[in-house]
């Protein structure tokens, strides 16, 4: 199995340090998302992988090949790494038409082969008929496709995407996301995808690395990171709705017994978690793990504090000694007709919960 192994430290002056350690699976089509707020350092990691920034320390390896090893004094310049890079605003060459933009990275190929490759890219990205247009004559979506075609034409071994959809309108974005992933899947290329949008990660990625304050906090398969965040920062970035405090009552082989408000729960014990009774922890409670039912159908009751109409969903804040947020689909809400002050039954899916030791 090939991986792109990243372990780098890059600083900008004495204050700003970017540290990235993660493995990007690089066999065939797999998307690894680099998720974080703007300024968290994710673009710097991407630029280091492309060779556009030189880290002070660390190593970068794709399979057997070493791109960077500061201890050995080795650094491979970007033009010899064969990575495809798509910038946030595409950076198409303004003096070249679509065809020549796509052919830019193919200058070492024979003319016939070059034409064949450009043609294949024009077809794959649905750009036929636009060959002679210049970048300023294209729509945002067309520019994005040209940028992808240009990056992919030389058969790169990894594709790096820097917020590839963020300069497009929201409705267009959702559609292009699907089209784009379908095309990339056909090319069987591994992708490192920088984004600040967790919805995007959920839709496109198989693996994710979460960045915060200049550091990769956690990386791994998407479900692992989203359902079992390593710390509170990751939990907030991946969007866990509820992170209430709870108290450890006891530990078993694969379970933790906790007191959550008025409730006692047995939740899965994360590997490596050591905690003594009485210790305070945070509990990840996704909104989807909270179910409201008519009073009497559950031994546990909650009091409704707030109800908001959010289109097809009803959003609620409820209280059971601690506060939790949850959602109800409209058809269920009609049967319960919740209002502030009302008491309802509660069912919690303990399997979907996760314990985070306090920092």
């Amino acid at each position, binding site marked *: 199995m090939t991986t792109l192994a990243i372990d780098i430290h890059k600083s900008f002056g004495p204050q700003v340090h970017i540290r990235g350690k993660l493995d990007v699976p690089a066999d065939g089509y797999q998307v690894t998302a680099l998720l974080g707020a703007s300024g968290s350092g994710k673009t710097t990691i991407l630029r280091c992988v492309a060779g556009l920034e030189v880290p002070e320390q660390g190593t970068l390896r794709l399979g057997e090949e070493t791109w960077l090893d500061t201890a050995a004094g080795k650094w491979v310049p970007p*033009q010899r790494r064969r990575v495809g890079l798509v910038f946030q*605003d595409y*950076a198409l*060459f*303004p003096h070249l038409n679509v065809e020549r933009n796509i052919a830019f990275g193919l200058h070492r190929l024979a003319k016939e082969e070059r034409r064949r490759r450009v043609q294949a890219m024009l077809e794959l990205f649905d750009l036929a008929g636009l060959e002679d247009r210049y970048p300023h004559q294209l729509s945002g979506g067309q520019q994005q496709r040209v940028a992808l075609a240009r990056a992919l034409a030389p058969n790169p071994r990894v594709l790096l995407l820097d917020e590839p959809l963020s300069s497009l309108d929201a409705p267009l974005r959702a559609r292009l996301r699907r089209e784009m992933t379908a095309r990339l899947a056909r090319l069987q290329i591994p992708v490192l995808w920088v984004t600040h949008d967790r919805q995007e990660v959920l839709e496109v990625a198989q693996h994710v690395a979460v960045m915060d304050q200049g550091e990769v906090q956690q990386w791994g398969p998407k479900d692992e990171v989203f359902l079992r965040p390593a710390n509170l920062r990751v939990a907030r970035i991946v969007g866990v709705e509820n992170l209430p405090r709870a108290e450890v009552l006891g530990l078993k082989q694969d379970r933790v017994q906790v007191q959550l408000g008025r409730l006692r729960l047995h939740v899965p014990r994360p590997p490596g978690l050591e905690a003594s009774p009485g210790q305070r922890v945070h509990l990840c409670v996704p909104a989807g793990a909270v179910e409201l039912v008519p009073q009497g159908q559950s031994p546990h009751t909650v009091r409704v504090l707030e109800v908001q109409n959010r289109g097809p969903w009803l959003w609620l804040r409820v209280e059971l000694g601690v506060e939790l947020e949850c959602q109800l689909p409209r058809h269920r809400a009609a049967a319960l007709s919740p209002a502030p002050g009302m008491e309802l039954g509660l069912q919690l899916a303990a399997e979907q919960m996760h314990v985070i030791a306090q920092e």
Partner: protein
Amino acid sequence: MSYVWEQLATLDWPTVQVTLRLALWTTGVLLVLGLPSAWFLATRRFPGKSLLEAGIALPLVLPPTVLGFYLLMALGPQSPLGRWWEELTGWRLPFTFTGVVIASVLANVPFAMRPFMDAFSGVDRRLVEAARTLGASSAGVFWRVVLPVCLPGILSGVVLTFAHTVGEFGVVLMVGGNLPGVTRTMAIAIYDDVQVLNYTRASWTAGVLLAFSFGSLCVTSMLGKSRWRV
């Protein structure tokens, strides 16, 4: 129309020829030396860079006679530089065409370098980076991306330099004197004609220079608008 041709025929043609030769040489030298220097200045940071940039702009504000005076001193046989040249070649630089070209090049440095530097520093860094990830070497990036993107700026520097040299007066007069067919330029010829009260020829020479200068500025203005849009 035939009247215009008749009047143009009375112009001092050897002087026109000297003027155009001087402008071509000046522009050529500044293109060859100025482009790499402007690229260096636009892309590197080093101590003393602002001093160097101020030095480049100096001929814009310095009276041409001041520049001409110092050049005459520097190139003449009293200075080590002038003596070294004389030993090397057997002849002196002041009052020769070569001397005038050197003086004119120095006087025109800002007219070439400023547009070149503006063009280079205006290049979107990401275009350069995109080219590198697409396998282009540093030379490839320069020839295939930087130069074509900067072409309007470079051309406007060329036109400005040429036009400004055609109208050069003070520096050329100080270093080159006023030798017909060798160092006398059109601007100097106007002054001469006025001295001997030949207002007709002076006005035609002046008119040609006016039309040429205006035309050149029209060209640079059009080049300024034709910057690549994204």
